[in-house]
């Protein structure tokens, strides 16, 4: 397999904020790749650097072996971008919108209409684009990114703000697009989305890639990780940490969100006995690892905190 996208030591700074801090990636042709992280982790900036919207301060980016910056029409013809629905223009119908985007790539009218059909919007062709529901608008914006049959498709949080039904609907669409051989790169802050859709993910925080791998492999790495949780307020997080250290448990992440006190650990035995000794077992729950625990372990803090 040849790499569709290569990034090497990419950095981007906005004023005092180091938005992207030395990101290196290699995305293979045909891959469904996820960039995962909380808000402000630098996902969107990373995506914009890969697309060629912005110039990196440092580092090298190549799409099909060519730099996307400065604006390179040869590269632009081969990539597609899904934008937030808000970038539609006023007063245009669904069909006028997709035809406008199709014209940017000199694509045929019929092809544009076929793409509308493909995302299930042909019956809405006369509806103003700003009157579409959230899920329909996202499908239209994906259709606008796919209309010229690009080799790489970039998607920036495609399911943000959608209801569960619309999310699943969109997942099916994205999966079928990927199965046709398109390389998909998506940012998301939904762990379940990355786990279900992506071949590989890069977990980002504070502009850095913490870990890259298949979701299942990342979870397997910590498959002996167990999360023990009890009701909050029975014992303080700091007190819990001290007790665990004195009990000889050195690998445990303690967190208290005001509702639940949870401990992620590989050695649940001593943790349970500490809690038992303190009589702090109300609401006790013990469960296996998820991608969230990968994140917790990588960052030492809860996801989205």
């Amino acid at each position: 397999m040849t790499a569709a996208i290569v990034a090497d030591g990419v950095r981007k700074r906005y004023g005092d904020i180091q938005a992207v801090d030395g990101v290196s990636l290699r995305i293979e042709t045909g891959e469904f790749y996820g960039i995962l992280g909380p808000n402000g982790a630098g996902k969107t900036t990373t995506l914009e650097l890969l697309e060629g919207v912005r110039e990196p301060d440092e580092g090298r980016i190549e799409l099909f072996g060519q730099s996307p910056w400065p604006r390179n029409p040869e590269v632009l013809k081969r990539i597609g971008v899904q934008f937030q629905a808000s970038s539609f223009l006023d007063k245009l119908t669904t069909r006028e919108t997709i035809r406008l985007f199709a014209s940017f790539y000199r694509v045929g009218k019929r092809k544009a209409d076929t793409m509308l059909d493909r995302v299930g919007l042909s019956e809405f062709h006369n509806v103003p684009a700003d009157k579409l529901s959230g899920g329909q608008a996202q499908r239209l914006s994906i259709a606008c990114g796919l209309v010229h049959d690009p080799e790489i498709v970039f998607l920036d949080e495609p399911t943000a703000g959608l209801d569960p039904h619309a999310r699943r609907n969109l997942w099916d669409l994205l999966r079928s697009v990927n199965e046709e051989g398109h390389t998909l790169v998506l940012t998301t802050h939904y762990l379940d989305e990355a786990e279900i859709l992506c071949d590989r993910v890069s977990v980002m925080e504070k502009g850095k890639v913490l870990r890259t791998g298949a979701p299942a492999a990342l979870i397997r790495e910590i498959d002996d990780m167990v999360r023990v949780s009890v009701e909050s307020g029975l014992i303080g997080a700091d007190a819990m940490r001290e007790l665990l250290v004195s009990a000889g448990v050195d690998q445990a992440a303690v967190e208290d969100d005001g509702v639940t006190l949870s401990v992620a650990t590989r050695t649940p035995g001593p943790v349970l006995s500490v809690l038992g000794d303190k009589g702090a077992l109300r609401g006790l729950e013990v469960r296996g690892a998820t991608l969230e625990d990968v994140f917790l372990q990588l960052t030492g803090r809860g996801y989205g905190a």
Partner: protein
Amino acid sequence: MSVEETTTQVAENTSEDTSNHSSNDTVRETGTGKDSRRTGSGGGGAARDDRLSPVRELSRVMMLSVLRDKSTIFFLLVFPVLFLLLFGSLFKTTGTSHIKVAQVGEVRVLDSLTEAQHKQLSSVATITRVTDEAAALAKVRKGDYDALVAQDGGTVVLRYSAADSVKGASARATLNAVLEAANLAATGRPATYTLNASQVEDGSVKPIQYLTPGLLGWAIASSAVASSSLTLVTMRRRRFLQRMQLSPTSAWELVVARTFTTLLIALTQTALFLLVATLPYFGLRLTGDWWLVIPLVMCGTLSLMSLGLLIGSVTRTEESAGGLAQLVVLPMSFLSGSFFPLDSAPEWVRAVSYAMPLRYLVTGSEAVLSRGGGVVDVLPTMGGMLAFTAVVTALTLRLFKWNDT
């Protein structure tokens, strides 16, 4: 086959735009037939026949956004025409200095005028006989009469108000002429010299001939500057420009589309203005090379649009773009003679006006619409406006940004 293809494309475009169903169906059939032939002959260029052009689609979209918004139509077309109707009606009479004179008692020179002389006088003045001198004088003060005339022995007394010096002077000159003629007649000798005064413009000059180019210039300036600056700012804020940046379509194609749309709007405004101004009520007469107003308007629109694109490139929000556009357009309109003629303006205003692209549009269209100007009068003007466009556009390209951050 290439000929057939071309025709088909044209037919299809037309049918799309007018949604003519019957012809649409026929075209669809032809299109499908061609597709299958294409596929048969080896695929590569399939569906090239109906490829969409970014310039055409962008122009269409910009035009639709005007046509689908009633308030935009009002401000682009209706509002300027209302302005022309208002100003045209207000100034309709100021051009002819017809004066109203109240005559108290007997005034021999006036009473003894021949039928022909009386007719000549009544073309410039209406003389009303009154009896109450005090009441008539009060009416002169109020402006109901422009002057009062009476005879005191051998002296003809004329009283007028300083409030309207033009009318006062006109009344004085008229009466003076009548007296001179009477004095001359009294000597019994024929006149040695006579003055035949007439305006240099053709006899039909009316305020509408100055108002039309001026207000049209203002209307075009408002719409060209505002719409082109707002296009850029709105598209940038919506991140539509960033989306375009990621397609092979260039910024030039966007500018060309904006140009088509802006020209179309400006020419529509011009047509409406000429239509209203040539109504018998206003009586503008299109004479000589009046059609030169069309290329003039096109060049002027380009120069004004380039200003709008510059504003759209240096501002970030619709509010600041709209504000800056008004800040440029309103003073420029005043300083370019859109609302009052530059001839009577102070020296510095005239000096400043030479830097305004709108001045050239206004004076140029005035030349061809009311001064009987021809190609040689407006060619340098058009050249200047195009040069202005080139300079401003070069600056805009340096400042143009696809996105906010």
